[in-house]
């Protein structure tokens, strides 16, 4: 799974980090970073939840 963050939209709401801390981290720069560049299928449900719940819809899965 490859994950893309649209930095025009990401504002550091950190919903992604809350739902899937294995993959997303929001630091002092208030931007989400993908810390696991190629997560396994076991994380798909959580990643999809993060994509769906991002308030600004800044995330996308690129398979």
């Amino acid at each position, binding site marked *: 799974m490859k994950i893309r963050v649209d930095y*025009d*939209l990401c*504002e*550091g*709401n*950190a919903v992604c980090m809350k739902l899937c801390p294995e993959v997303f981290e929001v630091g*002092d720069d*208030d931007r989400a970073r993908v810390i696991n560049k190629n997560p396994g299928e076991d994380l798909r449900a959580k990643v999809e939840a993060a994509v*769906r*719940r991002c*308030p*600004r*819809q800044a995330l996308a899965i690129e398979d």
Partner: protein
Amino acid sequence: MDALSTATHAGPGARSAALDAINLTDADVYVPGVPHELYKRLRHEAPVFWHTAQADGPGFWAITKYEDLVRISRDPRTFSSARRSALYRETEPEDLANMQLMMLNMDPPKHTRLRGLINKGFTPRMVALLELRIREAATKIIDAVADKGECDFVANIAAELPLQVIAEMMGIPQADRHMIFDWSNQLIGIDDPDYGGSLETGKQVSMQMYMYANQLAVERKDKAGDDLISVLMNAELDGEKLTELEFDLFFLLLAVAGNETTRNLISGGMLALIEHPDERAKLIADPSRIASGVEEMLRWVSPVMHFRRTAMRDVEIRGQKIREGDKVMIYYISANRDEEIFPEPYRFDVGRTPNEHVAFGIGEHFCLGSNLARMEIRVMFEEVLRRLPDIELAGPAARLRSNFINGIKRMPVRFTPERQRSGAGA
């Protein structure tokens, strides 16, 4: 309205005649309460519904399903906030250019850049830094009424906190905050005679706010700080600073958005707890559940009931052909009762999980103040439920006459004075 109740067993012809009678735009319809039955009917029978033209505007598509609202919100290139603004009211051509200077009424890429100017002030991290000050403000607010045994919940409790917080963030002197309160009422309540409502009043009030904003800007010019006004004045867009008018309109948006909506959530949330004593008891017994309660209040109240978009091209939703230029109204108040998303949507449940409501919208225009609002509301209910736990209505709540904002103007309440409570046994 009688036609609706008799149409349930009639054939398709009578049903469509009954649907034609639906009017979501009549502000009087909202005075007794949000017309949930109308929205429910549309979700079930005509989820992409062509609403007939009214005296104040053309026909439009009424979008009542959650999934469709999300789809539309995520696609600003197809569904524009700029073309005819994001508001229900039709804008005169001479006013549209000014409206489009406000972030609410912009599309990407202009929206993206303007939003990027101030969003750093509203991140969860920044808001967390404010918690102490917010709690101090909430404490003082309750202090002022705690021994009186009664008050107007709206004026004395719900309205005060958001006013104080946004004034603090914008560096507006505390002494001026009630001016902002009055102006904001007049702008949002232009449908409601109680607030001196009229479009003319709205224009006059806007002018007064612009003058105030300019004065603040002048005072701040040589003393740049990290308050929002200083940030705005020093901000640059496309290598240029905000014009005076852009600054004024921005101030207007923040002074209204940061004030009215949060106030109405706190009032509406309190009313929901009063009407659902079992749910209130859960929060009193375990204050750690208040955050979850706040999410349910957001879903339940949905203070901003709708926004508007304009189609930029022909597009089809659920088989309905939306034409380029068509007016499209997206109803958050309905999406947040969508039976396909929320089991038992008409049940107020402070423990509701998941609770993926769209009270703050979703996508580009997702509410910039959402984290601040959540903080204010949570802190306020922590204080109210701890210090005035038996608060109850002392008279009926008076609702705002508006098809846009789900608001409460007055809510007389009574409670055991704090001094008496602390004298009682443990």
